[in-house]
């Protein structure tokens, strides 16, 4: 187990190193720079500005500096926001994104589990088909289409919720969270349904039935708890999906989160924010997948993590 964890950590660092390197060189290879697009400066002043940001040095030197700073946890400074440090900019906006992300995840997974259980316990009835239909729609309809519809009907037409922006506190977070919840809801419900059906046909459920346990007890005490364990495995992909979703949903609802900042930085060629956010997203996803894998091994003793690949 320890050997496995160490191995995984080493791989995580290699992956991150590669991402950082690739991001750096891709940024350097891009046409245009944050300075050139901002204003037309005479060459002499351009040289001064470039020197200030270290852009006049040869690329290998810039790369070495960037990597050294990265090792110290310094992501550099933004070009557009008055030299604010990228770490600070990300931290300022993190809270909002985490709020809608976690609300969406919790809401989606909770409802998804409920739907999945109903479908499994009432297999091949109208309940089952209804929940499958919701799941298919949840997987199929792109989050930005769904978010747009929510915004149009619930906010613009019926004015139940704020249309966008982050002005009404928690009320503003409701629609984006619902929009984000659709993906996790669909995934969780389908997953729980399959797992529950499998668990319900296993020997220990038959044993519990023959011992006279009632349906409720069997469903919750025996089947549900065992069906829940594998759900951890989809948490990684779900987190990745939330990240994708947050990029568009923050855009649609004009929420000042990291996703929105990232898209804006792309549009304005702000290298340091693009690189910083890319690395931040990567670390986030890599750590989640790692934690999920390790947790799974700890929680479910039937899975033995070994040195070999999965």
């Amino acid at each position, binding site marked *: 187990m320890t050997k496995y964890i160490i191995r995984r950590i080493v*791989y*995580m660092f*290699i*992956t*991150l190193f*590669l*991402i950082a390197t*690739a*991001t750096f060189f*891709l940024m350097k*290879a*891009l046409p245009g720079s944050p300075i050139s697009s901002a204003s037309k400066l005479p060459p002499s002043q351009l040289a001064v500005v470039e020197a200030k940001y270290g852009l006049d040095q040869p690329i290998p030197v810039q790369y070495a500096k960037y990597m050294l700073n990265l090792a110290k946890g310094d992501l550099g400074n933004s070009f557009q926001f008055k030299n604010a440090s990228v770490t600070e900019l990300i931290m300022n906006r993190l809270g909002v994104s985490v709020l809608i992300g976690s609300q969406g995840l919790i809401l989606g997974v909770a409802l998804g589990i409920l739907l999945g259980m109903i479908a499994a316990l009432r297999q091949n009835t109208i309940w089952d088909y209804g929940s499958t239909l919701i799941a*298919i*729609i949840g*997987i*199929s*309809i*792109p989050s*930005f*289409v769904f978010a*747009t*519809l929510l915004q*149009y009907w619930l906010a*613009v037409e019926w004015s139940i919720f704020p249309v966008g922006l982050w002005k009404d506190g928690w009320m503003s977070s409701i629609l984006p969270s619902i929009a984000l919840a659709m993906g996790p809801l669909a995934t969780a419900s389908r997953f729980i349904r399959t797992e529950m059906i499998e668990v319900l046909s296993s020997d220990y459920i038959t044993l519990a039935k023959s011992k006279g346990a009632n349906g409720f007890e069997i469903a919750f005490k025996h089947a549900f708890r065992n069906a829940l364990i594998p759900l951890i495995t989809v948490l990684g992909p779900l987190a*990745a999906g939330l*990240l*994708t979703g947050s*990029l*568009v949903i923050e*855009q*649609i609802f004009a929420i000042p989160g990291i996703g929105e900042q990232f*898209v804006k930085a*792309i*549009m304005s060629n702000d290298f340091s924010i*693009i690189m910083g956010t*890319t690395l931040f*997203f*990567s670390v986030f*996803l*890599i750590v989640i*997948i790692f934690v999920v894998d390790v947790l799974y091994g700890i929680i479910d003793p039937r899975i033995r993590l070994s040195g070999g*690949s999965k």
Partner: protein
Amino acid sequence: MSLDLKKIPAESFERVHIDSSHAERISKPSLSFWQDAWLRIRKNKAAIASIFILAFIIIMAFVGPMVSPHDAETQTITHANLPPKVPGLEKLGIFDGVGTLAGKEVDLYEMKKVDTYYWFGTDGLGRDMFSRAWEGTQISLLIAFVAALIDMVIGVAYGGISGYYGGRVDDMMQRVVEILYGIPTLVIVILMLLFMEPGVTAIIIAITLTGWIGMSRIVRGQVLKFKNQEFVLASRTLGASNGRIISKHILPNILGVIIINTMFTIPTAIFFEAFLSFIGLGLQAPDASLGTLINDGYKVIRFQPHILLYPSIILSLLMIAFNLLGDGLRDALDPKMKD
């Protein structure tokens, strides 16, 4: 009731022998894998409905722009922002070209003196949305199919080589996959799009860059499972070459899994393209895909909801149909489900 057995002549009786040579005779005609799969998918109503929906959308994507009297590119500014109007249906009070203008319901076609029909309405530049929507569908489908095909080819080749040859080769190739697998797809796709000229090719490359990894892992697992089974060993003992074993014994067995996985890659690719276009990294004007059309429509949703509506419906139907068909194929082709 008692029957005199003696009255029945002995010749009417015939001795039944158990013929051991017929013990293994199969009474039902044997079905090939594909016939069997077809029998099963035929029972799946959702999958059949999906096939029809997909066929309809694919045909319309090519025929649609042709049957429309208007061109997708022609800008007729005087015809801008018209709501949908369809001959025949207009008498029912739907699709009659009535839209709201300054809070009042007016027939915009009459007001702007337009005597033709725009089935899906027009956009802000007076372009026919019907032609545009179907041409956008064409581009979205093209990107999805090409991306899925490339994913499949690279994934099968990589996973197949890695699994079949095993040992050192497998070890090396799997290290590479392990590292690549850690890179978030979204991040790499966005970075690649920044780097390349935006366009269809760039999007396809960006999607396939990491898209093949899932396929390669599945194929490798399958190849590992099959390569040591008795029928493969028997074939090898008889002197079959690697190429023959792969093409005649292993590939046919994992074909089902490959098809299922590809079926799920297509909607993912459609979604990714639409997503990228929506945040402004995808296709650039004048090219249009479903994603860019939705993005355009989103900006004017308050005033011209029809611009958003039709591309969204087509996109959602495409995604639902591909997912349902994928589900149906999985049930039909997965040997584990066979009873």
